């Protein structure tokens, strides 16, 4: 469905994508994962045919550079947060998007219902919460019922509750048989949403694997902040250190470094030593 071959993108002397090659099959869900500046958004822009590049990007056999409009008619794009049409009502944003795609007006009402935005249809975009703005972005992308959805950091500006709702919504879309491409720097989110992860660093692909394998292959680490029962923090540090973890006291508990893919191991060690865990927080 999407074929990327030797994709290279330079902004003057700076190279932001280096010789990236990637095939995405119809119905597959793929994450472009990496830190800020890794080149994820640039890949999205190249797929949409919005920027000049070297190499080949084909969508459904169409060259994104020469058949940009045709390619974009097959793709629903969800920006990080649809907050730029602040003075427009939700329904006006969707009407405009539908008009640009030459879709019938009734399709807007259908999508408002599907995305559960009917009650907010006449609100101005600036009045929406982060979660609702995200739903508006997804609604606009779904208007043409596209075979491909391209989501750029879809949950990065959301709080935990809104993020959970957005992830569930995207999961539903994934099971509709669409091809899904998600850019993200959240490992957990990637695990829930996609079959395959393409890890990027400094514009180059450094790994291509399943979400479960990613943390292990890249040796990703996380910090857990663990609150144990009062008076047992010293004992928790001693037990964790004895089991090979890097742990030390923090003002309100114990800070322990763990492999990102197996955070539970440190907890199991503490529970086996008879310690009570009152709270856990993941710090990156």
């Amino acid at each position: 469905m999407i074929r990327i071959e030797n994709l290279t993108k330079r902004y003057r002397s700076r190279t932001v994508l280096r010789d990236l090659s990637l095939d995405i099959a119809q119905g597959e869900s793929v994450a472009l994962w990496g830190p800020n500046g890794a080149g994820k958004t640039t890949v999205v822009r190249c797929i949409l045919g919005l920027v000049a590049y070297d190499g080949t990007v084909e969508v459904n056999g169409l060259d994104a550079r020469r058949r940009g409009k045709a390619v974009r008619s097959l793709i629903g794009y969800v920006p990080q947060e649809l907050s730029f049409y602040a003075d427009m009502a939700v329904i006006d944003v969707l009407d405009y998007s539908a008009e640009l795609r030459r879709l019938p007006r009734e399709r807007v009402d259908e999508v408002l219902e599907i995305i559960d935005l009917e009650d907010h249809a006449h609100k101005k975009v600036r009045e929406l919460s982060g979660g609702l703005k995200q739903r508006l972005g997804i609604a606009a992308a779904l208007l043409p019922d596209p075979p491909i959805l391209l989501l750029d950091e879809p949950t990065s500006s959301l709080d935990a509750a809104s993020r959970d709702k957005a992830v569930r919504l995207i999961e539903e879309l994934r099971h509709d048989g669409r091809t899904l491409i998600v850019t993200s720097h959240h490992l957990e989110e990637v695990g829930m949403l996609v079959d395959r992860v393409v890890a990027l660093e400094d514009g180059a692909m450094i790994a291509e694997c399943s979400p479960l394998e990613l943390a292990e292959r890249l040796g990703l680490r996380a910090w857990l902040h663990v609150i144990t029962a009062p008076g047992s923090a010293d004992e928790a540090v001693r037990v964790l250190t004895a089991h090979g973890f890097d742990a030390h006291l923090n003002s309100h508990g114990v800070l322990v470094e763990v492999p990102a893919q197996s955070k539970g191991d440190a907890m199991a060690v503490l529970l086996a030593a008879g310690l009570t865990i009152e709270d856990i927080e993941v710090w990156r």
Partner: protein
Amino acid sequence: MIEVRLPEERPQLLSITTVARQQLRATLRGRWFWMWTAAFVGLAVLLVVVALPNIDTARSAAFGRTSASLVTLVQVIVPLMGLTLGALAIAAPRESGALQFLLSHPVNRTEVFAGTFLGLAAGLGVSIAGGFGIAGLLTAPRGVASQAAVLLWIALLAWLLAMAMLSVGMAISTFAHTSGSALGMAVFSWLVFVFLGDLGVMATWVATRLPVGLLFAAAVVNPVEAFRLASLTAFSGSLDMLGPAGTFAIDSLGAALTPALAASLGAWVVVPLAVAWWRFGERSDV
């Protein structure tokens, strides 16, 4: 899934008008637009009210005064309107992400660019029509309805000047990195066109005793001056009030003077717009 009909790659009129209508709606909602329109309409009304009390005794003189004042008002406000609206046209949506969202639809850059320009040009037309329309309504019942054609012609010239400044503003917008720097460049350009250009020509003439033909050419190259000369020709029939340069213009160009001035304004619409369109298509970022 909805069956997708692949769109034509070449620019489509329907896409351009869709973007233009949206741009017009956004312009009419904009803070800058209303600020300039309120200033323009308010001052136009004030000028008419000040110029009209003597209209019964010296009808044509009062109309001439009103028109001259309106021309001066247009010379100052309309370039600022065009330049600032143009400067924000591309730079602001690029900064906010709206441009990327718009371009993620099955539209191409030419459609977005043309639609944006037409929407803004229509918005400026609304503003100028408001100013001149109210001025016309106030003068018509007091016996100068016969001069309506002249007022309409000056309004058209003002719109042409607005589009020229819009083109320059859009060219600035496509080169600028941020909307802040685009606005800064627009204000600087306004100073150059409205004040420094005029003063520069005068100072050069005083210092070098430039031949009168060159002096006239230097004035016509500035779109604001071209508008002023064309407007003065329209309501006074001559450029004698401009001294030797005016006499030279009438003597050398005769009936071709007004078309030449309009052509100068037209060139200021087309050339910067072509540069802006090229730059918008060529920029490798969104």
